[in-house]
């Protein structure tokens, strides 16, 4: 075990695996954070991630370009969240039911389409071109693991930073949080609850699609039916635990990624855990975290409550 820990190849692979597992989750959870802060519970993340993953996979497979795939995946996320925009924000329908519906449709349609088109060939995408940062990429272990990632990785990190800044420092971020904390106050201040929530839902969809696209393009380099496998729900948990702070979202996502990587690494050692334990490990960690920190999970008061002007 100890000689394994000092092995640079192993360490590099470990860090790469941790990052690869945490990025899709972080992106989806950032989207969910924006949505929840604005008072919209998006239970459809799981389905939107699958739609983003599938469209990104198909696009990159046919064009050979990972960036186009990423873009299309996140646009597909925006499009699928239009359902929630109209039904949840505009008409004020039940967010839990619509969210589940979006998840079911996303699971069903991507699985049917994949099996129809690719079941016999099950193609892979290959590795996205890496973007080496000069000097830093020369550092042993860390350089190879962190500073030789694809450009998409850095783009997503940049997006996360921008969103964090906008949520904390801009008027727009304030409106988002007002829409979730006390929508009537936003209304009284001359803002439009509907418009702010609409923006939040669409951005949340874009990020969920992006997360799915990252999962298909970078993390797994392929698509398989039901590949998101609960990650969307983990994103909702992380959102609840992070209380609207993007930095916490990033850190808890990384913790999840490390759990996944540890699971994979344990397979290499003499322990040789069964694959099912490794699949369960992240969920067990999430559950323990929930049991320990449940007192600190805070959701916006107006979460999942449609806003009607003047209603008590």
């Amino acid at each position, binding site marked *: 075990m100890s000689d394994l820990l000092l092995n640079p190849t192993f360490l590099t692979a470990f860090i790469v695996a941790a990052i690869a597992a945490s990025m899709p989750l972080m992106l989806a959870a950032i989207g969910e954070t924006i949505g929840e802060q604005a008072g919209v519970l998006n*239970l459809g993340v799981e389905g939107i991630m699958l739609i983003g993953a599938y469209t990104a996979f198909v696009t990159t497979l046919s064009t050979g370009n990972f960036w186009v795939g990423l873009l299309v995946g996140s646009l597909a996320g925006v499009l699928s969240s239009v*359902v929630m925009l109209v*039904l949840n924000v505009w*008409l*004020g*329908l*039940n967010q*839990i*039911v*619509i969210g*589940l*519906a*979006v*998840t*079911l*449709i996303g*699971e*069903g*349609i991507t*699985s*049917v*389409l994949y*099996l*129809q088109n690719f079941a016999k060939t099950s193609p892979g995408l290959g590795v996205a071109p890496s973007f080496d940062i000069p000097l830093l990429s020369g550092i042993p272990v860390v350089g190879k693991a962190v500073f030789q990632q694809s450009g998409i990785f850095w783009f997503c990190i940049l997006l996360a930073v921008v969103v964090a800044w906008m949520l904390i420092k801009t008027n727009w971020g304030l409106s988002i949080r007002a829409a979730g904390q006390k929508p009537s106050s936003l209304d009284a201040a001359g803002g439009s609850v509907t418009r702010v929530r609409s923006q939040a839902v669409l951005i949340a969809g874009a990020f969920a699609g992006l997360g799915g696209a990252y999962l298909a393009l970078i993390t797994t380099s392929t698509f398989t*039916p039901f590949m998101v496998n*609960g990650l969307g*729900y*983990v994103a*909702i*948990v992380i959102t*609840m635990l992070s209380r609207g702070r993007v930095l916490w979202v990033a850190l808890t996502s990384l913790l999840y990624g490390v759990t996944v990587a540890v699971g994979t690494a344990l397979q290499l050692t003499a322990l040789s855990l*069964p694959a*099912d*334990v490794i*699949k*369960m490990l992240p*969920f*067990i960690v*999430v*559950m323990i975290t*929930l*049991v320990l920190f*449940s*007192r600190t*999970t805070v*959701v916006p008061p107006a979460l*999942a*409550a*449609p*806003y*009607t002007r003047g*209603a*008590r």
Partner: protein
Amino acid sequence: MSENPSKMAGAMSAVARAVIPVILAIVVGGIIILAMGKDPITFYVKIFQYGLTGTNWMRSLVLMAPLLVIAVGLIVAFRGQLWNLGYGGQFLLGAVVVSGFGPALFAVVPGPLATIVLLLGSAVAGAVWTVVPALLKARYGTNEIITSLVMSFIGAGVVNLLIKGPLKDASQPIPQTKVLDSADMLPDIFGTKVHLGFLLAIVIALVFQFVLSRTSFGLRMDVFGASAKSANHVGINSTGMVFLVFALSGALIGLAGGIDVLGHESYQRANWDPHYGDAVMPFVFLARLSPVAVVPLIGFYSVLATGGILAAQQTGLNVDFLLVIVGLILIFMTITEFVTTRRALGQSYMPVGLKRSVTGLFDSITRRSNR
């Protein structure tokens, strides 16, 4: 007497609100099939051919048994406004109790006793899996949707470990449990190939219809579901209610797993997950959380699912397409609900708390037109 016409109209509109979303979903699903270059008419005709004609209706009723018990389990939870979405894990755990311990138990204990013990075991397994979400909900108000879902993933993993480990049938190359002896399975109802579990499911639906609508316990649960605060005010122990409702719901869903294995499957493979709960969800709402009203709807879906497997194969689709139809039903259900609430046709099938703000807007209109 003078109330009868309006009662009829009310019943008719309730039926219409349950049927319209299903029809819309089938139509839109057909358009999607058409867009994928397949023939929707053939798909739907074949579904009803393989789901109803000849002796196929019996296969549909066999599928209906676990679906109906899960539906009642969900109704119990949703009536109490607790979103138990961990049905996947609860079902599999209930199933593995029968498939894993059944063969050994039938060898030493007389059949009827073993059957009862196993089914009770399934119910207990399902109920135990709800304890943590219930605890977190009762103590800290943690969102039970998330906790029950995460528990469901862990439950599915535990079941896989059991089937690949201690409960594995060593003589089989693929990880699966020992196959139950056909003499130990639930007997068929006289003259059919439908096992007794179907009758049991119908009885469960009737009993819970009575309990939920005719007993003080049912009333307490509805009060608790409408508002936990008011429930506390009138002396209902809301902490106890969370545990009780969750445990009842989980027990029924676990029992459904046991019934499915003991009546139909006879063994359990690793990674087997029929996703029954996902399919049942919309029909529970369409039946406005009534255990009896859900029976025909579940019957309809059983035909759809039984015929759907073969129909999908022959039309070149995958059976996962049923998920799309189920999702569409959910969407059209909420839209129909919205439209009919606007037109103030009667009571709603959505939980009170969640739709209060929607209806608030139209309350004044309702009152005027009722006069």
